[in-house]
């Protein structure tokens, strides 16, 4: 995934004001304060971008200022999500896409790793059940695994 292929908020032909509003610097300062708390105490902060009165220019400006770090991920569950670490280590951008690829939710998270990227213990447990079921099946052919679900095992 590259910066260029990411989804943007711009809706062609709509007459919303799109110039900078001054919110960008306020938000960058808020992110700096949150990062300071994270460094000092490990406190995780999530900032909901949709709740802020940002113009398209503000959003683009913040994305450009924070830049692109070393990690990016594309999540495919109930539609897609784009997640990347910005050039400021510890500051992550999480963008959930909804129907028709529109942005449904968007957060800047100050953390080591956004929780949604880590495997949930319950999912790991489910994974184990599936793998065991796969190995126990008489026709198990480990060279071309059948994608089993827990429904098969139940």
């Amino acid at each position, binding site marked *: 995934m590259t910066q260029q292929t990411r989804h943007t908020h711009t809706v062609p032909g709509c007459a919303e004001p799109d110039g900078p509003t001054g919110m960008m610097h306020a938000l960058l300062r808020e992110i700096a304060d949150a990062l300071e708390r994270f460094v000092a105490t490990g406190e995780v902060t999530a900032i909901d971008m*949709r709740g802020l009165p940002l113009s398209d220019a503000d959003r683009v400006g913040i994305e450009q200022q924070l830049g692109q770090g070393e990690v990016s991920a594309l999540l495919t*569950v109930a539609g897609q999500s784009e997640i990347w670490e910005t050039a400021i280590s510890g500051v992550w951008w999480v963008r959930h896409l909804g129907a028709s690829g529109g942005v449904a939710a968007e957060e800047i998270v100050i953390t080591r790793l956004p929780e949604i990227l880590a495997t949930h213990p*319950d999912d790991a447990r489910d994974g184990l059940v599936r793998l065991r079921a796969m190995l126990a099946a008489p026709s198990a052919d480990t060279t071309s695994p059948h994608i089993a679900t827990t429904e098969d095992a139940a």
Partner: protein
Amino acid sequence: MNEPATLGEALSRRGISRRAFLKYSAYLASVMALPASASQAIAQGLAKARRQSVIWLSFQECTGCTESITRSSSPTLEDLIFDLISLDYHHTLMSVSGDAAEHAREAAMKENKGKYIVVVDGSVPLKDDGIYSTIAGITNLQMLKDTVKDAAAVVAVGSCAAFGGIPHARPNPTGAASITDIVKDKPVINIPGCPPIPEAMTGTLAYILSFGKLPELDHLARPKAFFGETIHDRCYRRPFYDKGLFAESFDDEGARKGYCLYKVGCKGPIAYNACATLKWNHGTSFPIQSGHGCLGCSEPHFWDQGGFYKPLAAHAGVSAPLIGAAAVAGAAAGGAAAWIARRHQQRYLAETEAIDRSVGKDKG
């Protein structure tokens, strides 16, 4: 195979990970303006919750509310709600099933006694013993009373169910009543709009599932998360209103420049709804962004408010120069609009109550 005990189990049987809950809860926290930190609590609540039985009754309505909530064809983030609820009966969607659908409703009521949620769209005719709308030979009034009897809560979706809506418009020939006029012994949540914003319907249901309680409501029983502010409060044309710059017609210079639509009838100052922030068609646009004033469809009696294209000031008997002057004054503008809104609402409420009395609403 056993029924899954929790939603977490139900999704994992379909090969969907817990990430779906984290994603949905981030979305829900965002649309309900909850702190982003609340999303973890929502995700945990959803994973442990049981699938919520929902019985959907459709009375005097146009099916727009159902269209709104079932609008999407591919499974998306917004559609996850259909994994969280068990829509055990939906009169319109199940109409071809005839008798079997009615049995499904009765079975769901028995199995989930005291726990199911009844969603109602459409108003209920009370005049002439409710004969103007029946389903399977049962009047809407009787079906509502029978179904609500063992429900945990009732959600009135759309302005017809919440406030009587278009069937209630003068002269209200069927004696149409809202759900809160009839249901007095159960919690009722109103999600008005013609139709309501899908996120307001699904968000409210998901909130109940996650937290096991009703969201905070306003004086008209609307969730404050979606109906806490007017369209005018969050309208992107507001800077023009504050400067006194208005479109005078739909094709003038002001309209082309995107000026405020107040003088061509916008009801944004009295309409409490989230269209200006959540928007429609997957966040594409909303009426004002498309060049048309707000109709105020989430307010009681929006159909009878004297004309969609007349400015609010005209209804309240206020001269246009007064509101114009208030608007130019900037800070005073909000106050002027609120004052007009109150005066306007009071007059229509008084008139509508008189009509209700004349059709014998108290029959129910």
